[in-house]
Every structure is written in structure tokens, then in C-alpha cells.
């Protein structure tokens, strides 16, 4: 498995860790302009650590849904080209804005990912990658609603949180149902549980069908 240009394993304090080049954001260690990417704080980081291929390439155009305070989105923007970062909550937006301050290619949007019409006049079409990390019910539905932004060979990189879908059911059952929903619009290329980095999360890589 090859890491994309712009993502490397670097040595921090004697330890090999995933890293990207950019301004530090959340107190992570920086060596020679490379900042450590903490797989415990980032599902996308965990996917790399687990050997998955999320489909991020240097210079890609990306839509990031559920950007939160920008921890992961900052690493994505370090690697990618234009990066649209959608977040619904007002509170984390303050941190996301300071991440965007040093990243001219990161475009923060205080919008609801369930209503793509409210940002389709801003986010361009034909994107290379849709990263989705929303903690809301109906995560597969959100992925399908935002499929319109991807080009035909684009990638969806989705983290599904079982408890957000249905806290009363077994994660495996929840994941199976979510994958079924997803298959109505996407072909699943890979899927894996994110243990031990993130409990009860399933990571999915898919492409539009």
C-alpha cells in the first residue's frame, strides 16, 4: 500500500508516526515542518494506520462532511487541493476557522450535511473525494445525498458510528443495514472496523455506481 504524496511516516521522539506538512493545529508534535497525525483522534488517520486506501491523493478536490473542529480536515487540507469543510454545530466552528486561517484551500461552511442544496451553490461538482464523519442517524442517506458532488470515479471515505445510528442494536447489525443502504448508490471497495483506534466504528471506502 502506498501513502499519497504529502502523507509520510516520520520520526517523532523516536517513534514512527503518520504526518502531513502544515501549521500545527491541536498541539501535535512538529518536526521539520511535518506534523504528526494522531490516528486515535482521526478516523482517516486510523484508516491509513490499518492499511486501508481512503483514496486521498495530493491536490485532490475534497468535500469533508462533519469537519468538527478541523483536526482531521487540517491534515486533509495539507495534502489535498480545494477542501470544502461542512460542519453543522456552531461551537467547533471557531476552531475550524483558525485552522482555515493558515490554509487558503480550506473552505469552512456552517451548513447541515443532510441538506446539500444549502451549499451546492458553493461546493463545485466533479470532486475526487467525499470524506464523511457525521455523528447523526442516517449516515448512509447523507452519503447518498452528497453523491452529486463526486465525479464518476471519485471516492467516498465514510466512518459510520454504530451508536449514532441506533444505540440499542448490535453494531454488526447496524453496519450491515448501513452498507445495504449505501449500496443503492455506491459500490463498496473496502470496509473495516476501526478498532483499536475507534471503538464501534466502521470505515468504508466506496465509489459511485
Amino acid at each position, binding site marked *: 500500500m502506498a501513502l499519497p504524496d504529502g502523507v509520510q511516516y516520520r520520526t517523532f521522539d523516536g517513534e514512527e508516526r503518520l504526518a502531513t506538512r502544515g501549521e500545527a493545529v491541536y498541539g501535535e508534535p512538529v518536526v521539520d515542518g511535518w506534523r504528526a497525525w494522531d490516528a486515535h483522534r482521526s478516523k482517516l488517520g486510523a484508516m491509513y494506520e490499518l492499511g486501508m486506501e481512503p483514496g486521498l491523493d495530493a491536490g485532490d478536490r475534497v468535500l469533508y462532511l462533519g469537519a468538527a473542529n478541523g483536526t482531521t480536515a487540517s491534515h486533509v487540507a495539507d495534502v489535498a487541493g*480545494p477542501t470544502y469543510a461542512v460542519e453543522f*454545530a*456552531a*461551537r467547533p*466552528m*471557531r*476552531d*475550524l*476557522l483558525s485552522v*482555515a*486561517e493558515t490554509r*487558503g*484551500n*480550506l*473552505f*469552512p*461552511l*456552517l451548513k447541515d450535511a443532510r441538506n446539500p*442544496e*444549502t*451549499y*451546492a*451553490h*458553493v*461546493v*463545485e*461538482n*466533479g470532486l475526487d473525494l467525499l470524506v464523511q464523519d457525521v455523528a447523526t442517524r442516517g449516515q448512509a442517506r447523507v452519503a447518498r445525498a452528497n453523491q*452529486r*458532488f463526486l465525479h464518476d470515479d471519485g471516492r467516498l471515505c465514510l466512518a459510520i458510528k454504530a451508536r449514532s445510528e441506533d444505540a440499542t442494536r448490535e453494531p454488526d447489525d447496524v453496519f450491515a443495514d448501513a452498507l445495504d443502504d449505501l449500496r443503492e448508490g455506491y459500490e463498496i471497495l473496502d470496509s473495516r472496523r476501526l478498532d483499536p483506534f475507534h471503538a464501534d466504528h466502521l470505515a468504508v471506502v466506496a465509489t459511485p455506481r
Partner: protein
Amino acid sequence: MSEGWFAGLATDQVGAERVREGSADAPDAWPDRAIEAGVVTSEEAYYDRLHEATTAAARTAMEERERADDQQVIHAVRAMDDAGRMANELAERVAEWAGSRDAASGTGIDYCRELAATDPAEPADERLVSLAERAIELDDERDALERYVERVVRDAAPNLAALAGPTLAARLLALAGGLDSMAKTSSSTVQVLGAEEALFAHLRGQAPSPKHGVIYVHEYVRGTRPEKRGSAARALAGKLTIAARIDHYAGDRRPSLEADLDERMRRIRTGGEDDGAA
């Protein structure tokens, strides 16, 4: 046909409002469209303008949402107090009525829960059980409102919530009339928020100046021995006022505020400085 956020934008306009208010059925190749429309001359220039517009839009929207949130906290904390008071009043009524029918009856919301689990035998029992259910629902409503208040006040005023605890923070916001007003209020006013009656009595010359209002419920006031309580209240009010100002004007979390307050309190509680001397 859908238009991009930049449609008809003058060169001196940022377009933040378009980003916030606009919509489209489908995305398009907006950078190309913007160049075609003559809004920008290059893709690079387009993304520069987009960055400016989106960050400005996100900042304004965030601030509006936070401003609105503190008002929601005020309504919610009042509703919470209503629901709690009513739950207790109804539970008292239930206990009084049940006592006339059953010598072994109890009191309070817990007794209402017991009673609600029984099968009513007579029409009076039906009403009594139903009344107990109303009391329980109001108590549950109070708890749900408290959870809502805690969550929202941590977003709307994170530093104030961290220092005061979310419920007291919400009460202070309600008494001040919002984060904006509280940020503009003096520390000495914050100190006596909720003690308006005592304050007016003092101003009429009928009572000593109140040492604290609703901040009395804070462990740092209530848990400080009486002769130091005025100093503690003054110090706490000072830090809360600073926290409210940071929340309003800056918005980031400053964990150092709590450390400062802890240190100040340690000195007041152990030091010789007491109210008369302060």
C-alpha cells in the same frame, strides 16, 4: 437553473451573505463558471475569494448562532425552574390528597412514582394516580431541560460554564439578560445578580449591602467560611465576569481561568485577609 454564490457579485463585495443565504439544486463547475462570468480571472483568484467569503460567512453565522443560543438558554433555564417548582407543588398536593385516603402514603416525587405504578381502584384513585403522573412528567421535563441547558450553555459560554457550572452559568445569563449584557456588566453587579430585592432594600437604607446573589450556590461561596465569604464572592464574580467577556468577544476556551480562580480561592481561604479588610 441554479446559480453560484458569486453570481452578480461586485468586485468589492465579499459575498459572505450569498454563501450563507444561497442555495442550488445541483453543484456545478463553479470555478469555471466564475471565470466565464468574469467575476475572477483565474482559478487561483477564485479560490482566494471563496476562502474569504466562506470564512467570513462561517464566522458571522457562528456568532449569530451563539448569540441566539444564549437566549435559548435563558428561556430553557426559566422553563426548567418552572417545571421543577410545579413538580414539587404537585407532589405536595398528591401527598396531601393521598394522605386522606391511605395512612401509609408517602411524600415527594419518589412517592408519586410509587403511586403511579399502582392500579387505581376508585375514581378518586384514578385522578390521584393521574396527578402523580403529571408530577413525574414535570420532574422528568425539568431534568431534560437541565441537560439541554448544560449542553447549550457549554457551547454559548464555554468559559463561564466551566467556572460557574452550567446551571449557575445559565441562571447568570438569564438574570443578566444574555451573554452580551453580562459581558458589559461590572463584576460588582454580577456579584449580586439575583439579589435585587436585598440590593434595593440596601439602596433604600433598610438593609446592609448584599454580599452575593445567585452565585451563593457556587461551592467557592457557600463552602467558604462566613467571614471570608464576601471576599470569595467578590473574587468569583470577578472571574465569572472575565469568563463572560472572553466567551462573548473571543470565544475560545481558556483553562487557565479555572487555575487562576482555584489559586485565588486557596489564598482567600488560607490567608488572613477577611471581609472587613478586603
